[in-house]
């Protein structure tokens, strides 16, 4: 399969990418290409120009910044999964990145492309919503920080404005007694999330002091599961309370559960409590170790 013809432009800096975006209306940014190229090949997208941002050095790397980890947009899933810093400070994110697709997909796909593409079946948005992360959007006139909860607005739609480029993702670093985890029902062929659940649990003397949960895969965009959070807060950190709280996820799902030929909406909704429960248990176990 061949993409429709396009003009290929390569940016070597963020400033150059902005200049190229301004000069080429309708152009698409290309990072790892693992969402865009399949679309171009199927001709579901046929932009007049493609701007390759894959070599912009300032968009790479993982660094501490205050209480956050700042992960450059071009950081690959493989780099995130292998990062000792991410594994320690944002275990759920490392876990989600390690479960994206397969090794070759993880070698090319980037966190910036993943959040900008905002596929409902993606893994990283669910984690960022649960961890209360944020997206740093660089516009021609400067940066703004968009909380993850406001960034994802619908199926493949985000709060990113025209000509804004994702520069980085911010993730708060876990403190003592806090654990996080991500679990998913992976599609058996693509490994995309049919149901994904991310949890962060702070355990204090055996009690769940703070609980944050997000679900993805089965809803148009990753969202918090506040009924689950309320049900578990103040409860003992044990299997029975995880199961009881996870069952409440039905109240968080609403009427817009997605279904397809692989898994119906009913089936996904029935699986959601299972994965939420597992995420809660794994997060609480990590809180105990931290």
């Amino acid at each position, binding site marked *: *399969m*061949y*993409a*429709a*013809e*396009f*003009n*290929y432009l*390569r940016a070597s800096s963020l400033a150059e990418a902005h200049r190229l975006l301004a000069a080429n209306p309708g152009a698409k940014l*290309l990072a790892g*290409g*693992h969402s865009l*190229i*399949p679309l*171009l*090949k199927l001709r579901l997208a046929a932009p007049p120009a*493609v701007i*390759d941002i*894959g070599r912009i050095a300032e968009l790479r790397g993982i660094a501490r910044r205050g209480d956050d980890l700042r992960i450059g947009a071009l950081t690959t899933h*493989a780099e995130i999964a292998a990062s000792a810093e991410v594994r320690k400070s944002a275990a759920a994110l490392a876990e989600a990145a390690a479960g994206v*697709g*397969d*090794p*070759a*997909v993880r*070698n*090319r796909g980037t966190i910036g492309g993943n959040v900008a593409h905002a596929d409902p079946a993606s893994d990283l948005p669910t984690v960022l919503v649960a961890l209360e992360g944020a997206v740093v959007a660089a516009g021609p006139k400067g940066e703004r920080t968009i909380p993850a909860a406001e960034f994802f607005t619908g199926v493949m739609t985000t709060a990113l404005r025209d000509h804004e480029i994702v520069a980085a993702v911010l993730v708060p670093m876990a403190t003592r007694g806090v654990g996080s985890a991500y679990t998913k029902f992976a599609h058996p*062929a*693509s*490994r995309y999330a049919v149901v994904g659940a991310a949890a962060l649990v702070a355990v204090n003397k055996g009690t769940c002091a703070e609980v944050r949960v997000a679900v993805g895969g089965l809803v148009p965009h990753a969202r918090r599961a506040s009924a689950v959070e309320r049900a578990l807060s103040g409860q003992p950190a044990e299997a029975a309370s995880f199961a009881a709280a996870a069952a409440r996820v039905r109240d968080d799902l609403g009427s817009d559960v997605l279904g397809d030929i692989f898994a119906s909406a009913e089936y996904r909704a029935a699986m959601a409590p299972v994965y939420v429960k597992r995420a809660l248990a794994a997060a609480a176990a990590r809180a105990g170790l931290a």
Partner: protein
Amino acid sequence: MAQVSIRVNGRVRKGDVEPRLLLAHFLREHLNLTGTHVGCDTSQCGACTVLIDGRSAKSCTIFAVQADGCDVTTIEGLARDGQLHPLQEGFWEEHGLQCGYCTPGMIMSAVDLLNDNPTPSERDIREGIAGNFCRCTGYQHIVNAIQYAANKAARK
């Protein structure tokens, strides 16, 4: 047209390519390196896996222009001086293929795996080739073949 210069199996290869040309087609049609197969053409099957700067990548999901200036290794680049690469030897010895369509991609993924993890468990091997589909073997002999190569390297 765009100019690319890609080091393929140690040799710099230059070409004028359309930006939409996939790396898989650059290798197969411009360089006649037909060991890299195209199976699904939809990023799923891994038959087209090559190494780009040492890491496995699906060459049906990369434009040749993106690999400009990079180091690409294909299945043709593994044997040295007529000696099979340990993974190729493993596939031979352990009957790791039937029709052979998936084999080049399997081997390239396995090279990446063993570079990262020279002593993989069976589970690690299965994870390492999770992006490579085989419609013939049932995978067990492929796993054995990769184990063979790991064991051979460990004995050295």
